[in-house]
């Protein structure tokens, strides 16, 4: 497969008529484009447009129903990732493909043990690559102990270790802060200089415009166009993607009142003998206020939410709902008292994937009307109310009897939001409410949050999407290593400022 009879002028990758059907869905339809060697080629498209599917086809994870793939001008038949690797293709998946309980070294050499063994020679090779591309990885660290940025770099290292000449990066920047994105782009530039080819997927069009040498737009599974980044702007690109105008979150006039609804007081959560996970967290949210929290994943935001929701015991400190101390209340009591919860990971915390929608409508409100009558579940009322939610919140589903797992992510999210809003919460804890949701669903979720805010809801909004934070919040705080920074005014702060504060770069500036 890796014969040297390659045509120097041929494109690194050439796709022709790729079609892939899933039962009931055509994920890719007659896709065609080619990628020049030594360039960064971006692919953009809405959620579900078929980008990941296409990349998986190129990486041999899935087989196309029709079409041909040429690598370096030669026709290839990719049966498995092993074939793709042999053809010089490497892929970093949208969701990291790392085994937490293996070391970095083990994760990297896995499947490529023949190259350098699994011992010291592999370790040396890893260090060499790490140094060459400034990836800064420790081969003997346990992956479980590492943050997202480091994991991202391991993923790239994995690909380079296998001597890939073409790299596929599926939404590599989704979980990175701006500074990390910059580092990544520097690394991409370096790779390009070495003659490597990069296929790059992102929803963030400004990034795409910054880094790509050419851009292919995919809509509903087909290639719409391949454009030169110099000749388009973000808005035009977005219109190509969705076929209509791109919505964006905008702040309206303030609805903040002086009625305190949620107050967190000097909250701490110990981390065993290590660094505390949460340290002296204090915050106040008023009726009608959205408090945004920015932070690199793993800095304590998830734990903060869990403590407020009563899913974890804080080491010290209090949480007040209005002026009632709810610190030692249980999750159910907190939810009954009027705290809505949109969890970060809807599959783990928000839904029973194998249960029908109407049972999912009960979840989290098992003690509240209309779901129950006394100790009994009122199935009829719950079903009726689910119908209402599906209609009101535009959940796209053929019926309320299908399992939650068969809905797409955006529709699952709308169901969750509908469910939480149906109980007239006073406080809403929303973690990444639009993560992985496509633009259409995104804007309707934003509208929902804004409407609720107008009616006096207090919202704690945690998001990795800085645009979203800036657009929706009345106040923004940054969380770093379990501590909260001071306030940022969303009207004046930029994503770069926030990014600096999130990575601690801003800290130094402040102290100076």
């Amino acid at each position, binding site marked *: 497969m890796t014969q040297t009879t390659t045509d120097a002028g041929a494109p690194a990758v050439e796709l022709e008529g790729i079609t892939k059907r899933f039962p009931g869905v055509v994920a890719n339809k007659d896709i065609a484009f080619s990628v020049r060697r030594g360039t960064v080629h971006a692919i953009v498209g809405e959620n579900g447009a078929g980008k990941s599917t296409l990349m998986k086809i190129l990486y041999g994870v899935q087989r196309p129903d029709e079409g041909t793939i040429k690598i370096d001008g030669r026709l290839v038949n990719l049966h498995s990732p092993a074939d793709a690797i042999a053809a010089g293709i490497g892929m970093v998946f949208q969701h990291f493909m790392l085994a937490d309980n293996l070391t970095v070294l083990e994760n990297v050499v896995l499947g490529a043990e023949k190259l350098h063994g699994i011992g010291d020679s592999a370790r040396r090779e890893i260090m060499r690559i790490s140094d060459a591309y400034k990836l800064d990885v420790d081969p003997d660290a346990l992956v479980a102990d590492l943050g997202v940025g480091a994991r991202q770099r391991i993923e790239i290292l994995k690909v380079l270790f296998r001597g890939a000449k073409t790299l596929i990066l599926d939404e590599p920047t989704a979980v990175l802060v701006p500074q990390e994105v910059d580092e990544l782009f520097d690394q991409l530039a370096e790779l390009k200089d070495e003659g490597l080819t990069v296929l790059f997927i992102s929803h963030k069009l400004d990034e795409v415009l910054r880094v790509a040498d050419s851009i292919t737009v995919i809509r509903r599974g087909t290639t719409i166009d391949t454009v030169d980044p110099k000749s388009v702007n973000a808005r035009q690109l977005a219109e190509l993607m969705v076929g209509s105008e791109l919505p964006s979150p905008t702040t309206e006039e303030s609805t903040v009142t002086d009625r305190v609804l949620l107050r967190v007081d000097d909250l701490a959560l110990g981390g065993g003998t290590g660094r505390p996970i949460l340290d002296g967290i204090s915050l106040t949210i008023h009726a009608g206020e959205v408090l945004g929290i920015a932070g690199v994943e793993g800095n304590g935001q998830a734990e903060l939410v869990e403590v407020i929701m009563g899913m974890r015991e804080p080491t010290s400190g209090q949480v007040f709902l209005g002026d009632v101390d709810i610190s030692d209340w249980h999750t159910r009591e907190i939810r009954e008292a009027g705290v809505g919860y949109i969890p970060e990971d809807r599959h*783990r915390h928000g*839904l029973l994937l194998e*249960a029908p929608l109407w049972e999912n409508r009960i979840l989290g409100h*098992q003690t509240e009307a209309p779901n129950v009558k006394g100790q009994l*579940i009122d199935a009829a009322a719950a079903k009726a109310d689910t119908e209402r939610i599906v209609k009101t919140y535009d959940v*796209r589903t*053929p019926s309320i009897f299908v399992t939650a797992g068969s809905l797409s992510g955006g529709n699952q999210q709308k169901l969750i939001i509908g469910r939480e809003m149906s109980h007239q919460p006073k406080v809403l804890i929303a973690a990444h409410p639009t993560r992985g949701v496509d633009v259409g669903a995104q804007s309707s979720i934003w509208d929902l949050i804004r409407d609720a805010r107008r009616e006096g809801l207090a919202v704690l909004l945690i998001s990795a999407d800085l645009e979203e934070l800036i657009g929706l919040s009345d106040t923004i705080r940054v969380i770093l290593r379990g501590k909260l920074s001071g306030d940022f005014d969303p009207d004046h702060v930029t994503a770069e400022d926030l990014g600096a504060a999130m990575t601690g770069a801003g800290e130094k500036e402040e102290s100076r």
Partner: protein
Amino acid sequence: MKPLNVRRILMSMAAPVLALVVAFVVTSLVLAAVGDPVWDVWKTILAVPKPRQMVNVVNAASVFYLSAIAVAVGFRMNLFNIGVDGQYRVAVFAAAVFAGQAWLPGWLNILASIAIAMVAGGLWASIAAYLKVKRGVSEVISTIMLNAIATGVVSWLLVTVSDRHAGSNSIETKTIPDSSQLQGFTLIPGATNRVYTLIVLSLLVGFLYWFVLGKTRFGFDLRATGRSESAAVASGVKVPRMVTTAMIASGALAGLVGMPLLFGQDHNYGTTFQAGLGFAGIAIALLGRNNAVGIAFASILWAFLDVQSNALQIQANVAQELVNIIQGVILFAVVIAYELIRRADKRLEQARVARELAAQRQAASVTEGAPA
């Protein structure tokens, strides 16, 4: 939804039938390979049971049913109570000792003993619950260990309280008074023996299981925990308390397993009291897919095979243990069949969701007149 349900019902009927056929074929192949009389074996096992044997099937099934339901309560929330075996032995011992004292008259004695059995079974199970919740000990291990410990503890206590009578080589608790011995129902005409009175207990437990799990808040929480522990936690379920409750409930139900035998047949607890019912319960719960009705069918099938195999040696000169092979193969075949059907079903459902959504989208774009 209606057409889907009809299809589902058909499919869930197809699975067991298919499994029985597979079990039939596999067993026949084994018999033929080893050189045993295939025809005689099936003639014996599939013979129409005599009324007496039908009663035995019903009786055995009613006991299996209790055991399987006890196991299923745990399974429904992903809790593996391998300890039903130990729990029911501890419980039936406690109940037998109490009932043997005849402190209460007739039915009161029975009801009190049943309550004691439930308490004893629940208490024994609570050790595993405590170890799980507070000490992080996997219930799979702790219940296996507790089964063995139950054996030791019960035989020690049995020796201490035993009521030996001359000429007997078995040790047993004091026989319960005549007024507390249940004579059973004559359900099947022509049978010399009777159906356990306490089959009503099995029916009651089955109904309660269905009702509590399917219709109550508690049941919802329990099932939610089984489907996704993390989602249940986020929804406000106190999982440690759920584990404790479910484990103790499972133990209390396990406590009932020996009751039909105690009051309807053995009238005391001794060395010849039936052991191993807890393990049969596991298999039957799995075969019945943890479903109240499914378990009922599974219990009857299991009991039928057990009873019919009794004659294997007499009629076909084949070791009775052959029935274990048949039961095991049926279990395999059923779960594989269900699994294949489940997958097909899921695929169909997703396809349908996607198709209908595409149709909706189509309609929407047409009405809005937006460019596609």
